[in-house]
C-alpha cells in the first residue's frame, strides 16, 4: 500500500507542482469564459470615440428631439464612467446607452432633403473617417399611410449600436405623432398595447411550517434570467475543465515513462496494478484540488456580485461523484493512449474520437438546458463518456430529475470506468515495453483484443 502512496504522491506533485499547471489553471477559464469577461472591458478600452452623425430631418420635429436625447445620453455616459457613480446609476446608464461608451454628436442640418451630390460627398467623408454616419428622415414620416424609409448611412450600418439607439427613439416619436394624426389618445393606446404578463412558474411545493406558523403551498416565480440559464452551463464547463486538467497530464506522463524507459524501472519495483492505482489516485487528488480552487474562485466571484444563491449546494456531492468517475474514466483512456504511442503527433489522431465524445455535451447543451428531461439530455446522461458533464448540467437546471436517472448514469459510468481501468492496466504494461506504436484506433482496438495472448505476467 505504501508504494501506491509513493506513486500517488509523485503523480500529484508532478501535476500540481509545476508552473505549467498554474498557467493552465488560469488560462482554461479565460479560454472558456473569457469573452464574457473580456468583452465589456475591451468595449470600454475601444470606446470613447465621438461619433459624428449628420441628421437631415424632413419632418422638422424629429431631429431636435434626437439632438436632445443624444446630449442626455452623453451626459449619462460621462456620469456612469466617473469613479464616484453608484452601481445602480451605472446599470441604468448602461440600459440607456447600450454597451458602447461612444458619445454621439448629432449635427442637425438646415436642409430638409439631400441630393445625390451631397449623399456622395458625405459618403466619402464616412469612408475617410471624418464622419461616422448620416441619417435621412423623410418628410412624410408622420403620415400613417407613409411607406417611406429612414436611411441610416454608415460603414457598419447593420451592426451599428447608434442606429439601433436612434431607431428606437425615432420609432417612439413617430408613433406619438401618428396617434395625434389619427386622433387617438396615446395613453389609451399604450394601455391597450401593454403586454400580457405571462409568468414562468416552477411546480408548487409545500413549505415547512415555521414556529407557530402553518405550512403553506408556494411556487417560485422565475424570470428569464441569463445567470439562471448559464449556471448549468458553468457547472458543465467546470466539470470539463477539471477532467481535462486531470486527464491531459496522464497522457504526457505515460508518454514520458515509455520514451524514457521509466516504466521498466517502475514495473521492476511495483506491480502494474499498484502502478496504475497509484497514478490514478494521484490524478484524482489533483483533480479534487482543481475543483476546490475553481469552486472557491467561482463562489467568491458570485458572492461579490450577490449571486451566491445561484450555486446549488445540494449538487456538490453529485458533482464530486461524477468528477471522480469521469477523471478515472478519461485518465485511464489517456494513459492507454499515451502508453501506445511514441509522440504527441501519434497521440492526436487517437485522441480525436475521445475529444468528440468528451465534447458532445457542449454541442447540445442548449437543447439540454431547455429540455433537461428530453431524450437527448437523458441519452447523453446515460452514455458514460458524456455522463459526467451532462448529468451536472441537467441537475444544475433546477428541474426535478427523477433520482434514478443520475444514479443509473453514475452506475453505468462506474461500470464503464472499471472496464476501462482494467483494459488500460493491461495495455499500459504491454505497450510500455514495446518500441512500436499504435497509429490508428483500429490498431489500438486490435491490441486491446490481443492483450491476453501476449504472454505478459498479468
Amino acid at each position, binding site marked *: 500500500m505504501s508504494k501506491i502512496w509513493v506513486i500517488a504522491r509523485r503523480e500529484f506533485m508532478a501535476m500540481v507542482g509545476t508552473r505549467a499547471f498554474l498557467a493552465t489553471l488560469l488560462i482554461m477559464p479565460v479560454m472558456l469564459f473569457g469573452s464574457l469577461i473580456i468583452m465589456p472591458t475591451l468595449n470600454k478600452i475601444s470606446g470613447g470615440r465621438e461619433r459624428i452623425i449628420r441628421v437631415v430631418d424632413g419632418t422638422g420635429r424629429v431631429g431636435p428631439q434626437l439632438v436632445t436625447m443624444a446630449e442626455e445620453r452623453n451626459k449619462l455616459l460621462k456620469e456612469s464612467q466617473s469613479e464616484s457613480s453608484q452601481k445602480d446609476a451605472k446599470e441604468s446608464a448602461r440600459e440607456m446607452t447600450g454597451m458602447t461608451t461612444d458619445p454621439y454628436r448629432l449635427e442637425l442640418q438646415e436642409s430638409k432633403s439631400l441630393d445625390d451630390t451631397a449623399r456622395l460627398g458625405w459618403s466619402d467623408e464616412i469612408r475617410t473617417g471624418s464622419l461616422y454616419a448620416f441619417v435621412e428622415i423623410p418628410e412624410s414620416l408622420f403620415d400613417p399611410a407613409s411607406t417611406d424609409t429612414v436611411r441610416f448611412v454608415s460603414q457598419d450600418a447593420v451592426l451599428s449600436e447608434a442606429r439601433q439607439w436612434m431607431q428606437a427613439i425615432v420609432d417612439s416619436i413617430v408613433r406619438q405623432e401618428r396617434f395625434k394624426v389619427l386622433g387617438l389618445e396615446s395613453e389609451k393606446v399604450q394601455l391597450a398595447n401593454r403586454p400580457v404578463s405571462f409568468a414562468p412558474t416552477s411546480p408548487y411545493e409545500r413549505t415547512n411550517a415555521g414556529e407557530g406558523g402553518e405550512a403553506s403551498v408556494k411556487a417560485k416565480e422565475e424570470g428569464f434570467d441569463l445567470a439562471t440559464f448559464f449556471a448549468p452551463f458553468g457547472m458543465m464547463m467546470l466539470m470539463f475543465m477539471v477532467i481535462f486538467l486531470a486527464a491531459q497530464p496522464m497522457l504526457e506522463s505515460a508518454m514520458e515513462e515509455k520514451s524514457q524507459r*521509466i516504466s521498466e524501472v517502475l514495473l*521492476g*519495483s511495483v506491480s502494474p496494478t499498484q502502478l496504475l492505482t497509484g497514478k490514478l489516485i494521484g490524478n484524482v487528488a489533483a483533480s479534487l484540488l482543481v475543483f476546490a480552487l475553481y469552486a472557491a474562485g467561482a463562489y467568491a466571484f458570485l458572492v461579490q456580485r450577490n449571486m451566491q444563491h445561484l450555486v446549488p449546494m445540494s449538487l456538490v456531492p453529485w458533482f464530486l461523484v461524477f468528477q471522480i468517475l469521469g477523471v478515472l474514466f478519461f485518465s485511464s483512456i489517456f494513459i492507454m493512449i499515451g502508453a501506445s504511442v511514441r509522440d504527441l503527433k501519434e497521440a492526436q489522431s487517437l485522441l480525436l474520437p475521445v475529444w468528440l465524445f468528451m465534447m458532445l455535451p457542449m454541442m447540445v447543451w442548449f437543447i439540454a438546458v431547455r429540455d433537461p428531461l428530453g431524450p437527448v439530455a437523458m441519452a447523453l446522461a446515460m452514455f458514460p463518456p458524456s455522463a459526467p458533464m451532462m448529468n451536472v448540467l441537467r441537475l444544475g437546471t433546477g428541474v426535478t430529475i427523477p433520482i434514478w436517472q443520475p444514479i443509473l448514469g453514475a452506475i453505468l459510468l462506474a461500470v464503464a470506468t472499471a472496464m476501462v481501468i482494467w483494459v488500460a492496466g493491461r495495455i499500459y504494461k504491454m505497450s510500455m515495453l514495446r518500441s512500436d506504436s499504435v497509429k490508428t484506433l483500429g490498431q489500438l482496438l486490435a491490441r486491446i483484443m490481443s492483450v491476453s495472448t501476449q504472454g505478459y505476467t498479468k
Partner: protein
Amino acid sequence: MGSDASAVLLEGVTKKFGAQKAVNSVDLQIPHGSIQGIIGPNGSGKTTTIRMLLRIFKPDAGVVHVLGRTSGDAADDRVGYLPEERGLYLRMKVRDVLRFFAQLKGNSRPDKAIDRWLERLGATDWSHKKLEQLSKGMAQKIQFIAAVVSQPELVILDEPFSGLDPVNLDLLRQAVLDLRKEGTTVLLSTHDMDVAERMCDRIFMIYKGNKVLDGTMEEIQSQYGEPVLRVRLAGNIVPDVSRLPDIESWVDCSPYTELRMKSLGARSSILRALMEQGDVEHFETARPRLHDIFVRIAKPSPEPTSNEQGADRS
C-alpha cells in the same frame, strides 16, 4: 549449487512471444557477491532475461529464482535496476527522483544514503538541479545512484558505462567493483567486451534465445581456445591467406589479421609462408579475446565470398 547458494538461478527457462521463442531453455547460476556479465547481440534475449529477473515477465517454462524467491508481481525490494540510458523523470529534481526510487524500494528515509552516493560520485552540487539540466554522463551517474541507493543485494546494470568520459568511467567502474566488495551481486549487461572481460567474474552469452557461453573468462577461453595467430605485414599488406598452410579460418582485425590454425605445430610453416609475402612486423600466438569469441559466435552466416569461405577453400 542450490538457489540459496546463488543470488540468481535460472532453470530451463523459456519465454515465448506468440510463436517466437525469445529465451529457450536457459540455465544460469550467479553466485552471491560476484559480477556476472551478460552479453549477446541485440535481440538475442538479454532484455527478456532481465525482465524475467525483474518479474516483469513470467517464464512460460522453467523456474526463475532471485535471491531465493521464485515468484512475485514485481522485483524484490532487494533488487536494483539501471536500464540502458534514460529511466529517469527529466522534469524532476535529482534529490526528488532519487528519493522517489528509494521509497519505491521500501527505503522511507533515504536522504543519508542519497547524500553519501552523491558525494561519492561527485554529484552533490547537482542535487537540486532538474534531470533535464544534466549532461548525459551526469544523468548516467544519477541513474546509477537510483539503482543502488536502497542498498540492494542484487543490482542489474544495463550498459551502465555508456556516455561516460574516461574519468567518470573509472569512477563508476570502481563503484561497481566496490559493490562486489561489499557483497552485492552485480549482473552487468554490456556490449563492451573489454568491460566484460576486465570486470566480470563470470560471463554468460545468449544468442538467438539460447545460452552459448557460461563460465569464467579462463573457462571460456579454454573452450574457444583454438590456437590463433595475430599477424601483420609491413606496409599494411593484407596476407594472401590462400597461400598459407594449415589455416582453418581467418578474420580481418585491421591492422592485424587473425588466423585460426588447424594445430599449433603449423606456426613455423605459416611464418615462413608469411615471410615470402612480405616483411612480418607482428607475429603472436594469442588467446582469443572475448570480442573475437563473440564475433565468431554471433557473426551472420558467411556469404560464399566471405573470408571464412575463402580460408576454408584454401
